C-alpha cells in the first residue's frame, strides 16, 4: 500500500470527507438529544435536526465539489462521480425525512434513533461512492447496511416488520460475507486493495484467474444489495414489512450507492468477464421482476418486484461501453430515485395507522377522492412505465441507446419487451385509482406540509429529468470522460 509520509490527515482530507462528517455530527446530536427530550415533542425537533443535517450535507457536497482529488491516503476520491452520488443520497435522505414526519406520528413510533439511523445510513452510502479502496468500501457498505437492517424493523408492534428486519439482516450479512471474501481474493490476485492499482493490474493484459473469482464473489455481495436476480429473493418480504418511508429510502439511496461501487469496480477497475455475466443477470432481473409483479395485490410488494426489474434495466448499462454506459447508469439511478422515493411517499401517507391500507383495492377511486394525490402517484407510475415527459422514459432511453451502441441488440429487445409487459401492472394501479368506484371506508387525510414538500421535490425532479435531461446527463458524462482517459 502506497501512502504519504504523514500519518495525520490534512485539512484537504477533511474537506474531502466533509459531507460524511456533517452527517455523522448531526446523527450523533440526534442520538444525544433524544433521551433528553420529552417524548411527545421530540419527534418534530429531532426530525427538524435531521432535515437540517441532510441539507447541510447537501451544502457540504456543493462545497466539496470545488476540491476534487484524492484524500486520506488515496482511500477517498472526490470527483464528478462522487459529487453526483453524494448529492443524490443527501437529497433522498431529505425527502425521506420529510415523509417520515407525518408517518411517525400516525404510526405512533416514538424513537429518535430513527432519524439518527437515516443519517448514519446516509454516511455509509455517501462514503461508498467516494471510497476508492476496497476495505473502506466494505466498511461503508456495512455502515449503510446495518443502519437499514435496523430501520427495517422499526414498526416494532408489527410482526411483519421484525420479520423483515431479521431476514434482511441474516441474508444481508451472508451476502456481505461473499463481498468480503471477494475483496480478499482480489487482494491476493492483484496485490492491492486500491481500485486504481487493481485497475492498472487488470488492464495490463495478464489477468490472474483468481481475479475472476474475486469479481464473482464481490458481484454476489453487491448484487444482493441492489436486488438483482438471482439474489433478489429477500426484496418482496423485506419491502412489504419495513415501514414505507424506510422502503423508500432503502430502494433508492443504498441502491444508488452500491451501483456507484459497481460502476467503480466494473469500469474504473476494469473487472474482467463482466459483460456476459451482467447480460444474464440483467435479463433475469427484468424478467423475474416483471413477471412477479403481474399478479401482485399488495402495492408494496408490487413496487418491490418493480425495483428488481428496474435493477435489471440499470444493469444493461453496465454491459455497454464505458463512455455511454456510465452516464446512462448514473442518470438511471437519479431518475429511479426520484420516482421511487415519491411513490413510496404516497404509499406511506395513504397506508394510515398500522399500515392497514396497502392493497390495490384500497386505492380504488382515489382519483375522485383525492385528485391531487392520485395525480402525483400517476406521474410516478408513468415514470416507472417509461412514458415520455417523465424521467423514467429518458432513463430507459439512454440505457437502451448505450446498449445498442455496444451492439447488444438481444438485450435491448428483452428490455423493450419487458418494458411493454411491465406497463400492465403499473397500468393496473392507474386503472384502480381512476376507473373504479371509490371506497368510502378508507380514510383519505389531507396532505401535510412536510409530505407536500417531499412530493413536490420528487415530482419536480421526475418531470425535470423528463423534459430537460441534458444537463444532468452532461454532468454524468464528465465521469466517463475522466475514467476512460
Amino acid at each position, binding site marked *: 500500500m502506497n501512502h504519504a509520509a504523514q500519518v495525520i490527515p490534512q485539512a484537504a482530507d477533511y474537506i474531502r470527507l466533509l459531507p460524511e462528517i456533517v452527517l455523522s455530527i448531526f446523527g450523533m446530536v440526534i442520538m444525544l438529544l433524544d433521551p433528553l427530550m420529552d417524548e411527545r415533542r421530540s419527534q418534530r425537533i429531532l426530525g427538524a435536526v435531521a432535515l437540517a443535517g441532510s441539507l447541510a450535507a447537501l451544502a457540504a457536497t456543493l462545497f466539496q465539489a470545488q476540491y476534487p482529488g484524492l484524500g486520506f491516503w488515496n482511500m477517498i476520491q472526490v470527483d464528478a462521480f462522487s459529487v453526483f452520488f453524494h448529492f443524490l443520497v443527501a437529497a433522498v435522505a431529505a425527502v425521506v425525512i420529510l415523509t417520515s414526519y407525518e408517518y411517525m406520528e400516525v404510526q405512533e413510533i416514538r424513537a429518535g434513533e430513527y432519524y439518527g439511523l437515516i443519517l448514519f445510513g446516509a454516511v455509509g452510502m455517501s462514503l461508498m461512492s467516494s471510497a476508492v479502496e476496497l476495505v473502506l468500501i466494505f466498511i461503508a457498505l456495512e455502515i449503510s447496511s446495518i443502519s437499514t437492517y435496523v430501520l427495517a424493523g422499526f414498526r416494532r408492534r408489527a410482526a411483519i416488520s421484525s420479520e423483515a428486519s431479521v431476514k434482511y439482516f441474516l*441474508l444481508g450479512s451472508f451476502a456481505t460475507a461473499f463481498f468480503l471474501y471477494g475483496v480478499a481474493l482480489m487482494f491476493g490476485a492483484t496485490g492491492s486493495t486500491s481500485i486504481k492499482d487493481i485497475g492498472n493490474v487488470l488492464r495490463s493484459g495478464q489477468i490472474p484467474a483468481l481475479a475472476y473469482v474475486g469479481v*464473482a464473489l464481490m458481484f454476489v455481495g453487491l448484487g444482493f444489495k441492489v436486488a438483482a436476480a438471482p439474489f433478489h429473493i429477500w426484496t418482496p418480504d423485506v419491502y412489504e414489512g419495513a415501514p414505507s418511508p424506510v422502503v423508500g429510502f432503502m430502494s433508492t439511496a443504498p441502491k444508488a450507492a452500491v451501483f456507484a461501487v459497481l460502476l467503480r469496480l466494473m469500469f474504473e477497475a476494469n473487472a474482467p468477464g463482466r459483460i456476459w455475466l451482467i447480460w444474464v443477470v440483467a435479463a433475469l432481473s427484468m424478467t423475474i421482476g416483471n413477471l412477479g409483479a403481474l399478479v401482485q395485490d399488495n402495492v408494496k410488494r408490487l413496487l418491490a418486484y418493480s425495483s428488481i426489474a428496474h435493477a435489471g434495466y440499470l444493469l444493461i448499462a453496465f454491459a455497454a461501453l464505458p463512455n455511454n454506459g456510465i452516464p446512462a447508469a448514473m442518470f438511471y439511478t437519479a431518475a429511479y430515485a426520484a420516482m421511487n422515493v415519491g411513490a413510496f411517499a404516497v404509499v406511506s401517507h395513504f397506508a394510515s395507522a398500522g399500515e392497514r391500507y396497502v392493497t390495490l383495492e384500497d386505492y380504488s377511486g382515489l382519483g375522485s377522492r383525492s385528485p391531487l394525490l392520485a395525480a402525483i402517484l400517476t406521474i410516478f407510475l408513468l415514470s416507472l412505465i417509461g412514458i415520455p415527459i417523465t424521467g423514467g422514459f429518458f432513463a430507459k432511453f439512454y440505457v437502451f441507446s448505450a446498449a445498442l451502441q455496444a451492439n447488444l441488440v438481444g438485450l435491448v429487445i428483452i428490455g423493450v419487451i419487458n418494458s411493454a409487459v411491465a406497463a400492465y401492472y403499473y397500468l393496473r394501479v392507474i386503472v384502480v385509482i381512476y376507473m373504479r368506484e371509490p371506497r368510502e371506508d378508507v380514510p383519505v387525510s389531507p396532505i401535510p406540509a412536510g409530505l407536500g414538500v417531499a412530493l413536490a421535490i420528487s415530482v419536480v425532479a421526475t418531470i425535470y429529468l423528463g423534459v430537460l435531461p441534458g444537463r444532468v446527463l452532461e454532468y454524468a458524462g464528465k465521469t466517463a470522460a475522466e475514467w476512460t482517459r
Partner: protein
Amino acid sequence: MVARSHVIFDRAPSALMVVAIIGTLTALFAATIGIAQTDIKKVLAYSTISQLGYMFLACGVAAYSAGIFHLMTHAFFKGLLFLAAGSVIHSIGGEQDMRKMGGLRTKIPWTFWTMTAATFAIAGIPPLAGFFSKDEILWQAYSSPYGSWVYWLIGVTTAFITSFYMFRLWFLTFFGEYRGEQEHAHAGVSASHGHGGIHESPKVMLVPLVILAVLSVVGGWPHHRFENFLSPVFHAGVTAYMPAEAAKAIAQGEQQTAGGPETLLMGISVAAALAGLFLAWLLYHRRPQLPQEIAQALGGFYQTVLNKYYVDELYAVLFVKPVVDGSAKLLWHGIDQNLIDATLDNSADGAREVSDTVRHMQSGNLRSYAGWVAAGAAGVIAYMVWIGVR
C-alpha cells in the same frame, strides 16, 4: 350508359349479343309477372322493367338511337301512368289494390282520359308515341346485322302480353262496378282530408297529367327527325365494325322509306297489341269470372308468377343468407372472437400463470432464501472460474 359507351360495345359483338339476350328475356320475364300482380303500382313497376328490357334489346342490336327514342317516349307514358296511378290512389283514399277498384271512369274523368292515352301508348297502338318507338325496336331487332327473328318473335309476344296486362289494369280500375269499401264511396276515409266521396284530384296534380298525355300522343311523330338527330353520334361507330355487306345494306336501307318486310312486321305488332286489348276486354269486362277459373286451372304455375317467380326469395337464400351467416359465424365469431381475441386472452392468462409461479418462489422461509442466494452465487462463481481458466 350502354348507348353512351357504344364505342366499346361496337368492338365487341359478343358483348352486344349478351346485352340483347338479357334485354329480350327481361322484357318477357317482367311482362309475365305483370299479368298476375294485384297492386296497381307493382304492375307499373314490372312494366317499367319490361320496357327497359326493350331498350336493352335495342342497344344490343346496335340500334342505339331506337333505344334512346324508346327511352324518351317511355318517359312520357310511364311517367304519366305512375302519376295517374297516384291520382287514382289518392282519389279512393289510399287503396292500391286493383281488386278493390272499378267503375272509376265516371268519377275521375280527367284521370281516366289521360291514363287511357298512356295505356294505348304503351300498348303500341298507332298513332300514339309508343307505337313508333316500340315498332322501331322490333324492326331493328329483326333487321339489324346483329339482330335475329328470335328477338323479334319474343319481342312481339311481349308486346302482346304488355298490351294485355295494361288493358287488364285499365279495365279493372276504371270499368265495371266499384268493388271498394262502401265508405270510400260515401264518407271518405283518408285521414288527410275530411271531405267524403271519390273525387277528382286537384288541378296541381291534373295539369302534369294532361301535359304528359299530349306528349304521349304526339311524342312519336318526329321519329325520323330524332333518328337523324342522333345518327352522327352512333352511325360511324356502328357501321365501322360491321361486316362490309351489312354496312352497305344499312346505307342503302336508309335511303329507302319503309319497305315491304317492315310494313308486314309493323302490321303483326299492331295486331298483337289489339289482340291483347281484346283478351283483356274478354277476361276483365265481359266475363269477369274467367280469370279466377283460369288461375285455379293453372294452379302452381299461377302461384309462381304471382310471387314473381320467387326471385327475391332465391336471392335471399343464395346470396344474402350465406353471406350474412358466413360473416357472422365464420368471420366474426370464428376468426375475430375465437381465434384472434382468444389468442390474446390466452397469452394474457399464460403470463398470469407464469407470474404466479414466480410469486411462489417467495416461500417466506429464510433458509430457502439463503439457498437461492447460495445457488446464484455458485452459478456466478462457476461461470467466472470457467472464463478465468480459459
